[in-house]
């Protein structure tokens, strides 16, 4: 039985959000001036929310661990942002975006939230353009679009391969306007280390100034967690090095439920691992799959020859190549969703067809695109009888204009020219669909504590389609949270400033200080990274792209044991009252070591295959994921009770009234 109240408004799907907004209590502008909001995180989700809340008149304090809000991990997003604008006239609509997203998420997201997302998506583009975000344009001056995995329309807006950067700069400029007005105080190089609850409500945070080491108290009438995703629990991922779960985990330990921790997106087009020294993995935007074709050799001996360097991929004849996505999924081909593409790559590599030294890579080949675009350009330039070489050069220029920075990034890392030889790619941990459980108002199970962006669980289900995380972050930040938080704050207009000298603040600060001192005083022998890498290996081997019950059971036990060893044996040099990145890492890894166990536990309990969660026991004869709607059509929301392994499961039943729940097929 579901027993969590998601507070979904009544009424027809398409009217829910409008009706809800009409019902919401408003705070009068004079009163907003007396209300403080803390925003933990200044990526797209936190930055947009901070700017809008400040615009509305609230006093906002923002926190981020980088030296500038503009460096948040959102900056790295490459491919684009979706919106149901139907500028291309190819049949897009709010309903279709809603439908694609629910289906893409393998029917594990909330209808009402996703519909709202689709509904406000078009406003995001208007907003960003007004703020000066330089999206790609056509020669006629109108906005250009491209398409992403899992959909058949062209609804993705982009700025070369730097969409996240441009959106974040837009959002940061909106923040800057409010900083200049004095409505936002930006605390950079600050890390939130605990949530303070007073009288059952979130009333502040404990943060550490990462330059001086000082531990600070900050109070507010509401606290918003916009701290991003936790993919770094795997050590190797496409996330920035500092991305972490700490803020989300701390609120979980204070009472916020943590939902679907095992739903992790593995992205199919990343640069493969090259060696033990590797600190992170680099994504090659999924938009490349619009033009690149994915293949491995058909014959095992060819794959072997390529691995050993005896055969070049360009020498392999067309009929000896296996374009396995086009073969298996003719309708979507190379544009199947990420979970499907990732598993298919793993399947081919596990079967021995991998093409790099480690056998864990497939090709992403642009030669057909060079020809196609080259011919088009030759035609528009009225070239007579161009040679094949000329055509290829023209085509390369078109591809360069579209993806130049990605090709350059690839070449820098791999030291091979992707214009001359196909790129090698392999799946890597990318995005976490799980996160803090929130209701329709984006409020967690702690009153006054909200969560937005990748830090919450709400809109993506078990698999996120491309270009939808940016959309969610900005939709929540610009257009949803500013309304819904007002409803909560309307009852706080007489509260006055929240003092920070209360016993609750004393207690929270003391706990944070003791934990940090414990690291500094520990007489261990191993570095923080040593433990993080070992955790990552357990996670990847046993809780990674495909999982089974025995491995998951082992993982739960191993992570627990590793956590104990960590607390005994970790060594953190330096002091508390100084800039100390090792100490920062130690505190983050300590939280990953707890989350990891809950993650495995969640994966173990979910006896079905679903989106990013593939359980080997549950698959069709053709190796496709086999969902169990009868028993698992719910959100798994975990309540912390003292140890991650003892967390209690609460269920939010997912009810589909507007969409027919079907097996997901991309054939």
């Amino acid at each position: 039985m579901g027993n969590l109240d998601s507070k979904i408004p009544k009424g027809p799907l398409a009217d829910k959000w409008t009706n809800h907004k009409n019902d919401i209590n408003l705070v009068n502008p004079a009163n907003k001036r007396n209300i403080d909001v803390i925003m933990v995180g200044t990526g797209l989700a936190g930055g947009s929310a901070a700017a809008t809340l400040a615009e509305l008149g609230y006093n906002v304090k923002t926190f981020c661990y980088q030296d500038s809000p503009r460096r948040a991990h959102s900056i790295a997003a490459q491919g684009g942002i979706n919106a149901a604008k139907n500028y291309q006239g190819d049949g897009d609509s709010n309903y279709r975006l809603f439908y694609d997203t629910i289906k893409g998420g393998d029917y594990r997201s909330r209808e009402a939230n996703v519909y709202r997302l689709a509904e406000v998506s078009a406003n995001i583009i208007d907003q960003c353009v007004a703020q000066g975000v330089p999206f790609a344009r056509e020669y006629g001056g109108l906005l250009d679009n491209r398409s992403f995995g899992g959909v058949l329309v062209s609804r993705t807006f982009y700025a070369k391969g730097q969409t996240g950067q441009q959106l974040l700069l837009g959002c940061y400029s909106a923040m800057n306007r409010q900083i200049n007005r004095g409505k936002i105080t930006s605390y950079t190089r600050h890390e939130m280390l605990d949530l303070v609850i007073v009288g059952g409500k979130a009333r502040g945070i404990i943060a550490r100034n990462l330059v001086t080491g000082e531990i600070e108290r900050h109070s507010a009438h509401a606290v918003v967690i916009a701290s991003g995703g936790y993919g770094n629990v795997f050590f190797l991922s496409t996330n920035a090095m500092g991305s972490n779960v700490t803020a989300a985990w701390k609120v979980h330990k204070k009472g916020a439920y943590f939902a679907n921790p095992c739903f992790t997106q593995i992205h199919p087009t990343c640069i493969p691992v090259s060696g033990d020294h590797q600190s992170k993995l680099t994504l090659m935007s999924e938009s490349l799959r619009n033009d690149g074709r994915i293949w491995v050799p058909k014959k095992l001996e060819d794959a072997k020859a390529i691995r050993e360097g005896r055969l070049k991929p360009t020498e392999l004849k067309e009929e000896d190549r296996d374009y396995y996505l086009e073969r298996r999924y003719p309708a979507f081909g190379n544009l199947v969703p990420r979970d499907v593409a990732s598993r298919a790559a793993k399947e081919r590599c596990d079967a021995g067809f991998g093409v790099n030294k480690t056998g864990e890579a497939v090709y992403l080949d642009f030669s057909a695109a060079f020809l196609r675009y080259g011919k088009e350009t030759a035609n528009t330039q009225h070239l007579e009888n161009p040679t094949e070489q000329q055509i290829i050069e023209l085509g390369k220029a078109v591809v360069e204009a579209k993806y130049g920075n990605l090709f350059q990034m690839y070449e820098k890392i791999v030291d091979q020219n992707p214009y001359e030889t196909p790129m090698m790619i392999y799946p890597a941990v990318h995005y976490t669909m799980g996160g803090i459980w929130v209701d329709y108002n984006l409020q967690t199970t702690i009153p006054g504590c909200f969560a937005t962006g990748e830090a919450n669980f709400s809109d993506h289900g078990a698999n996120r389609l491309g270009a939808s995380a940016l959309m969610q972050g900005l939709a929540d930040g610009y257009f949803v949270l500013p309304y819904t938080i007002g409803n909560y704050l309307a009852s706080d207009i007489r509260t006055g400033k929240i003092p920070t000298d209360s016993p609750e603040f004393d207690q929270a600060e003391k706990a944070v200080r003791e934990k940090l001192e414990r690291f500094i005083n520990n007489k261990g022998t191993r570095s923080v990274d040593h433990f993080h890498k070992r955790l990552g290996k357990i996670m990847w081997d046993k809780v990674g792209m495909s999982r089974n019950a025995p491995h998951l059971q082992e993982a739960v036990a191993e992570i627990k044991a590793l956590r104990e060893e960590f607390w005994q044996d970790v060594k953190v040099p330096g002091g508390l009252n100084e800039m100390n990145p090792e100490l920062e890492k130690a505190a983050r890894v300590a939280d990953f070591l707890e989350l990891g166990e809950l993650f495995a536990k969640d994966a173990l309990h979910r006896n079905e295959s679903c989106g990013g969660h593939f359980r080997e026991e549950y698959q069709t004869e053709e190796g496709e994921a086999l969902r169990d709607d009868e028993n698992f059509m719910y959100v798994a929301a975990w309540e912390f009770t003292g140890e991650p392994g003892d967390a209690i499961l609460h269920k939010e039943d997912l009810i589909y009234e507007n969409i027919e729940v079907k097996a997901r097929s991309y054939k």
Partner: protein
Amino acid sequence: MNLTLKIWRQKDAAAKGKIQTYQLGGVDPDMSFLEMLDVLNEDLVNKGEDPVVFDHDCREGICGTCSLQINGEPHGPDRGITTCQLHMRKFKDGDTIVIEPFRAKAFPVLKDLVVDRSAFERIQQAGGYISVNTSGTTQDANAIPIPKEDADAAFFSASCIGCGACVAACKNASAMLFTSAKVSQMALLPQGRVEASTRVLAMVEQMDKEGFGNCTNTGACEIECPKGISLENIARMNREYMKASVG
């Protein structure tokens, strides 16, 4: 590869710093420069010494956090890249590498290789934005058609990552390339024209207040900029500034 590393060590902003020498073996040419420093730090931690503190985050050349002066050049010997995109294959076995923080009066050292670049933030806060309400009640995006050339030019200016290499490369520690990139992005777009004069005046004023030097058209900034931000931006900013001062 075996390397000799000469690294600037400085306990905090108030302390005096000095170059310290480290020997490092087992460096793989496929490692990035920052991964090489990770290996050094792992060694130092294991030996009970304080690791070298440096700034970094995305490690894919987009956040602008990593900021090292390597053998006298911001982001090292390669062109068009950030430090995290620099790979050890650009060095040879037996090389000596000097690693220092970005040097500029407006970028005080906080610790070891980390500098405080918040002066850049204050320049943007002085006016680097378009004053538009964020509540989504704006007009339809396609109601503001923008010639592709202008949109592309604005995008190129907007691709500055705020790393500060231009300042570190400049003998006057000038912030003109950075500031002009920010001014240009908005000056090139119709949405940004309305406030163009007040914006450029406010940003330049703040830039001067922060203690950056003047531009003497040496062009070192453009050469070292990882994103290829061109000097044209400076020319454009100067034009904008003249226009605003006169008008």
